[in-house]
């Protein structure tokens, strides 16, 4: 069964550094998402992406964040200058219709 995959599984970075989180959505899906989950808190929507552009974003998704689909398979989330509060699990998801399928997540730790 097709799955959403994410790399890396864990990332440790210094505050102020840039990180790129990578996702490979399910191949025939057209809508892509990033969510984050701070430890012990709910899963929060960051951004959705369709037809090579952002279709919706939350107030969390400020100028330090960007998304890109650099080729036909990858979907990336870039955090330009990481802050301590960016430490979280980041989930990628994709959908063809009403159900979103989630990747295993990238645990980001900002020191």
């Amino acid at each position, binding site marked *: 069964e097709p799955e959403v995959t994410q790399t890396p599984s864990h990332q440790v970075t210094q505050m102020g550094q840039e990180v790129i989180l990578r996702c490979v959505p399910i191949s025939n899906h*057209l*809508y892509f*998402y990033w*969510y984050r989950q701070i430890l012990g*808190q*709910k*899963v*929060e*929507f960051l951004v*959705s992406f*369709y037809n090579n552009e952002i*279709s*919706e974003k*939350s107030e969390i998704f400020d100028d330090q964040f960007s998304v890109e689909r650099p080729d036909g398979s990858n979907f990336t989330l870039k955090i330009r200058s990481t802050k301590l509060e960016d430490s979280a*699990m980041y*989930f990628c*998801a994709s*959908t*063809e*219709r*009403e*159900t*979103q*399928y*989630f*990747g*295993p*997540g990238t*645990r980001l730790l900002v020191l």
Partner: protein
Amino acid sequence: AQTVTQSQPEMSVQEAETVTLSCTYDTSESDYYLFWYKQPPSRQMILVIRQEAYKQQNATENRFSVNFQKAAKSFSLKISDSQLGDAAMYFCAYRSVPNTGNQFYFGTGTSLTVIP
């Protein structure tokens, strides 16, 4: 914005018994989707069951079933014959209908422990 509330941060159930996890939501929309996702310790969220609001019949998937009360905006998950592998965090989620790209709104989750 829609809100999803899970009032039980933790629940436990004896193996082979039945447990019900609660979820309520707030919306002004008449049509939408509701989901239950399971997040085991491996952290990947897995779809458990899905309900379309326009369908009156409660969704069922093997040992998992829902009690969807649209007027009360309630969407509880019943797990029958609980198994050790059911131990996980369970999230209730809401999605609007009109746009396929609409985001999910999640509850805060219920941590389910299954006691052998």
